[in-house]
């Protein structure tokens, strides 16, 4: 009997595996993003000078590039999970569960609405 050996780079041979790996990496990156925001609070607590210095550091081209990359991974993570929600836990209003595409669309609409509400509050709408 010849044992099975998985080849290195297996996840590069199937686009769905590649997307899966991006989703998993996106989960790790989302956690990093959260830590960054928490650290931002620490700097804010230290005073105006410390916070401004941190914001200036985040505005450098290198930091902006890294942040854009992190944001892209967070987006992949969010969108791929939105695609999976309808499959992971079928949502039923009638006998038949909602189609995964419909659940995805509902999530996108809710996401836009919530983001809009947050932006409205943050930029002094209330």
């Amino acid at each position, binding site marked *: *009997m*010849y*044992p*099975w050996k*998985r080849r290195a780079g*297996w*996840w590069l*041979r*199937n686009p*769905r*595996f590649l997307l*899966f790996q991006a989703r*998993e990496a996106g989960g790790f990156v989302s956690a990093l993003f959260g830590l960054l925001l928490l650290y931002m609070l620490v700097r804010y607590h230290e005073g105006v000078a410390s916070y401004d210095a941190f914001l200036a550091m985040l505005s450098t081209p290198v930091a902006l590039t890294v942040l854009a990359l992190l944001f892209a991974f967070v987006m992949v993570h969010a969108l791929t999970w939105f695609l*999976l929600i309808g*499959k*992971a*836990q*079928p949502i039923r209003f009638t*006998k038949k569960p909602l189609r995964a595409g419909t659940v995805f669309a509902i999530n996108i609409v809710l996401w836009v609405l919530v983001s809009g509400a947050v932006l409205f509050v943050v930029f002094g709408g209330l």
Partner: protein
Amino acid sequence: MADKDVVFRVKRYRPERDVEPHYQDYRIPYTDDMVVLDGLNYIKDNVDPTLTYRWSCRMGICGSCGASINGTPRLTCETFIKEVRGRTVVVDPMPNFPILKDLVVDFDDFLRKLHEVRPFIDRKEEKPLAEGEYIQFPEEIEAYRQQSMCINCMLCYAACPVFGASEHFIGPAASALAYRYIRDSRDEGADARLDVLSTKTGIWECTFVGECSVVCPKDVDPAGAIQNLKVLASIRQMRQLLMPKWTRR
């Protein structure tokens, strides 16, 4: 009439003479109505009788003829040669399993896992025959119908990268069949199955890649079944933690 030809690149492994698997090419004639299994049968009947592979029904029912065709786990009896991209049909044994010979892989591990999840209607006590059959309403059948379509072809295991990384993982088909019986209104074995499925090597190893459902020739959706099992296992665990013993079923 065969007016075209195609190259079959078939993975060979004969344990009595090969140290490791290698490819062997066969150029054969084909017609548009031929499936990959027909091509393999042509090779065995006319070119190389030593080629070894499994098959039986030729109509996508028995689940015997699974193989990796140009990198994707599929039933050879359901894959038309004309559908395969390129001029070469590359046939490998199903990934993630040890090879016994050529395209024949070892399923013993799956059969052991299948046995563990009790793939049958499990009742604490059978009612007397005089009381008649167990009647089910259409919606009760619908609750498990999709998972009952599984033909144990193992394509889902061949596609699953989690099983490829950890052979201890109970895997898609065994989980889907466990879910099928848990959802059956006649069954009373949910607790015993969830005990098996909730272990370290059970459903929690699944990271929801979803490829098992993509390759399933019967649209069983094992990935969806596993996520539903996770919910059932979580509810059961919370009940055990929070509710008094007499309220549990």
